[in-house]
């Protein structure tokens, strides 16, 4: 069992900057912390074996470990210290509700309720049915339950409340079905409407809790923090509060779309208020009647299609009035919000690199990774390794392998799990989801955060089919750089996104990691500027620059991804959901926004191949004397890279191809291509126009891995290996092999001041 785990507040820090470590242990007690620089993590006995250096640092020491609680589930919290929403003098509410899994236990849609002593009021779904309850705080609860069960993925206009004059509770639900707003259209003979009234012998109490949309307060702890339970799954649109429950006629007008039909509300949370050209990248939820604003917790999906979405406009910034919904999930998380356990101010003399804080307690151990970058605005070497931290966040705690029925066919392996993967699968709720996973209700997970223990981001983690993936493969590049004696800095995707080209400019050569898949527009801009300005790049990965990715403006540690209409995807954005709420931009593949990776790095995604890898075969351009320097020490008549720690080849896992039609620079040289892929390797969906037989690695010529070289303006150049397993072939035969030689030849030349001459 895993009993100890932690995370840092952000992926990278420079000398002088402070980083905090947040640790939770199942058994409270002392924990030891020691800092290590990590060089190789992979435990594969066929490779070089793990390598690390113990670092003497002020963070080393003994700390008090506690068990830290994690709030999961997305909701909106509305502080109400003055009890304005308490409803003791009467309360009416109206909102549109779109439940996705109404049968899944108790779910609170909107509440001002303290569950410890059943005080306040709450609109919940119980046994698939809407219920409005009031509690007087002494244990007495009155409730009214709708006489019809809710249909999933269907909008309801819901009116409810407490009427002290009549001493009654009301719940009124009416389906609001259009051709486009839900799963059922007008042809379905739905008879889901009901209006139910019961006596209420008392008024709701006014507990000292916030109002909550999509949950209810389970308890308020000693520190005044409200913990929320009964999290709701589904959408809510336009919640309004009145002094009395809407009468039958008013409820009918509201359901018909006349939103003034019940008079003026005293509170109205307009989820679309604040949508601007750049989306709605804020946690603030505006209350437009009385100013009782709320805050999103755990980043529910804002700017979701509303009750009135007509399918004509799918860019929500153009039709905010149809995107007034928030989609909530009971398993979302954007920040574990644990108390800090330890902190490190990065010492001035700590070299840039990959680090872990190793925390131990008895036989429990966790290696908490982070990256030290050089002092801001400077370089300490001519070479930078650009660590793809956004890929790490996107894949954080991914559950695909044990959860997706198709996973073993995708991986062409059985599911393989070690202790950490088992922990994720069995006790995964507080660990959250990756952008590959599905929420409880089946919607794709659109957000992923750094601020939680990322169990698959550990130097010795073995990925879902007993391979290295991302970080562990990237450490093979680190091991190679060290072994070959190159001076290098480490920078990360966070520097690239936040600093732009300034992060790359101090370097002559920048090396990618093995899988730089998740890119923002600013990151692509930075690469283009760098390469056009004479910079040199080495793309030592596969499936790069693939998905449009954005960082939350208020929470830079949180990424948003919308799987578009095509691509190698674990889920697909539903109609009207393709645009990022945090930035307003179109999600999906960069290729579909005229920024195919071929235009920058020369190659772009063509296939995943997780069963076996293959070598490259050098083509005519490799024999061009102008690139002799690349192949010094390599026999160009032999396959290149028919070895390696993953699948026994340098071309594997996820691979990219040269394609002029997608924007590979017209003067690029195609040095080589892989051959020998299998029937299990398929062409990516975006290249399958008419799907047809033979779209596999044996029969289809587009399934290959291309080795590409081209020069850029001002003496710059780009070399693309285009494969995730290039990195895991570097250590073969004690780093003495063709892949290693080619990489070193290119890097040595790229790190040289002398401009690269135009090759066309």
């Amino acid at each position, binding site marked *: 069992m895993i009993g100890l785990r932690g995370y840092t507040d952000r992926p990278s820090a420079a000398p002088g900057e402070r980083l905090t470590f947040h640790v939770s242990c199942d058994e409270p007690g002392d924990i030891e912390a020691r800092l290590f620089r990590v060089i190789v993590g992979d*435990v*594969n*006995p066929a490779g070089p074996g793990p390598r690390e250096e113990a670092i003497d640092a002020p963070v080393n020491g003994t700390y008090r470990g506690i068990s830290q609680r994690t709030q999961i589930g997305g909701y909106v919290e509305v502080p109400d210290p003055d009890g304005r929403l308490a409803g003791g003098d009467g309360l009416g509410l109206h909102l549109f509700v779109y439940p996705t899994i*109404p*049968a899944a236990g108790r779910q609170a849609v909107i509440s001002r309720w303290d569950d410890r002593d059943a005080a306040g009021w709450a609109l919940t779904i119980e046994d*698939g049915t809407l219920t409005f309850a009031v509690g007087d705080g002494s244990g007495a609860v009155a409730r009214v339950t709708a*006489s*019809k*069960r*809710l*249909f*999933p993925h269907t909008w309801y206009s819901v009116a409810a409340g407490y009427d002290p004059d009549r001493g009654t509770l009301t719940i009124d639900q*009416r389906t609001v079905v259009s051709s486009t707003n839900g799963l059922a259209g007008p042809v*379905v*003979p*739905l*008879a*889901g*409407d*009901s*209006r*139910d*009234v019961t006596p209420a012998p008392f008024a709701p109490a006014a507990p000292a809790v916030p109002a909550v949309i999509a949950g209810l307060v389970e308890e308020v702890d000693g520190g005044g923090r409200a913990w929320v339970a009964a999290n709701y799954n589904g959408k809510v649109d336009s919640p309004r509060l009145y002094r009395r429950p809407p009468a*039958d006629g008013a409820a009918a007008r509201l359901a018909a779309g006349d939103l003034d039909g019940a008079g003026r509300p005293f509170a109205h949370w307009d989820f679309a208020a604040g949508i601007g050209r750049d989306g709605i990248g804020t946690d603030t939820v505006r209350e437009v009647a009385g100013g009782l604003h709320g805050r999103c917790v755990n980043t529910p999906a804002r700017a979701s299609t509303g009750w009135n979405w007509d399918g004509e406009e799918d860019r929500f910034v153009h039709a905010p009035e149809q995107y007034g919904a928030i989609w909530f999930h009971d398993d979302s998380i954007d920040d574990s919000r644990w108390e800090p356990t330890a902190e490190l101010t990065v010492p001035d003399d700590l070299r840039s690199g990959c680090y872990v804080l190793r925390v131990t307690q008895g036989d429990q151990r966790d290696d908490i990774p982070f990256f030290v970058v050089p002092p801001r605005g400077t370089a300490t070497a001519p070479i930078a390794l650009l660590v793809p931290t956004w890929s790490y966040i996107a894949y954080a705690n991914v*559950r695909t392998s*044990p*959860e*997706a*029925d*198709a*996973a*073993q*066919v995708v991986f*062409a*392996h*059985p*599911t*393989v*799990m*070690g*202790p950490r993967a*088992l922990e994720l*699968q*069995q*006790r*995964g*709720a507080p660990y959250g989801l990756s952008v590959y996973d599905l929420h409880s209700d089946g919607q794709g997970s659109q957000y992923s955060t750094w601020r939680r223990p990322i169990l698959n981001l550990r130097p*010795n983690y*073995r990925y879902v089919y*007993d391979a290295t993936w991302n970080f562990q493969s990237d450490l093979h590049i680190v091991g190679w750089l060290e072994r070959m004696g190159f001076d290098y800095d480490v920078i990360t995707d966070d520097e690239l996104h936040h600093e732009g080209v300034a992060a790359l400019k101090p370097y002559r050569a920048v090396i990618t990691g093995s899988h730089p898949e998740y890119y923002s527009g600013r990151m692509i801009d930075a690469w283009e500027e760098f390469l056009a300005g004479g910079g040199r790049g080495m793309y030592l990965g596969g499936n790069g620059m693939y998905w449009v990715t954005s960082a939350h403006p208020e929470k830079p540690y949180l990424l948003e991804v919308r799987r578009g209409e095509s691509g190698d995807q674990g889920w697909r954005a539903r109609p009207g959901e393709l645009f990022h709420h945090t930035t307003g931009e179109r999600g999906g593949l960069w290729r579909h926004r005229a920024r195919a990776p071929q235009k920058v790095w020369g190659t772009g995604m063509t296939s995943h191949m997780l*069963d*076996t890898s293959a070598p490259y075969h050098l083509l005519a351009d490799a024999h061009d004397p102008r690139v002799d320097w690349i192949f010094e020490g390599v026999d160009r008549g032999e396959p290149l890279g028919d070895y390696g720690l993953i*699948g*026994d080849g340098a071309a594997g896992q996820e691979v990219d191809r040269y394609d002029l039609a997608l924007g590979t620079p017209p003067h690029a040289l195609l040095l080589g291509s892989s051959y020998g892929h*299998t*029937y*299990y390797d398929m062409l990516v969906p975006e290249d399958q126009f008419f799907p047809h037989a033979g779209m596999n690695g*044996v029969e289809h010529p587009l399934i290959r891995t291309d080795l590409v070289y081209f020069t850029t303006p001002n003496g710059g150049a780009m070399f693309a290996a285009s494969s995730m397993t290039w990195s895991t072939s570097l250590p073969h035969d004690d780093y003495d092999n063709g892949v290693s030689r080619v990489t070193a030849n290119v890097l040595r030349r790229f790190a040289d001041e002398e401009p690269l001459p135009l090759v066309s």
Partner: protein
Amino acid sequence: MTELSPVPGGVAPGLTDPTRLRDRAEDHRAFWLARREAELRELVTPELIEEHRLDPVGERAHHSAELQQVLNYVRSRPMRGKAFVYTERAFESYRIGVLAGRNEPVRFDDDRRFASQSDAAHAIFLMRLADLGVDVDSLTGGEERL
């Protein structure tokens, strides 16, 4: 209690309760599985089992068309109740577990230990063939214990 949407005279009432409806695709699944599994059982021979034992992932040669079909099927079965390889110690000791759902405990009913991931993968393959209704013992001469 008042009920809205009164049923017009003489017309059957509309849908009032989703729990009374079911997914008829389940009927097709049962229909399809029966036929497909019968076809796949015919493909399983001692040679196919041996082909998998020697090279469960297809690293040495392309899998035969028959083995591909059988693997594509067993690999794509629903995850709940599906066997997986558990790495007790990487490159040293593997065993077989059975998956449940998210946030639910997995089961370890099988106490065998395997020295390699491939050996465990082959043991799982044999279990899956048995689930498919193949008499593995008779095909392997009883040499492979399920």
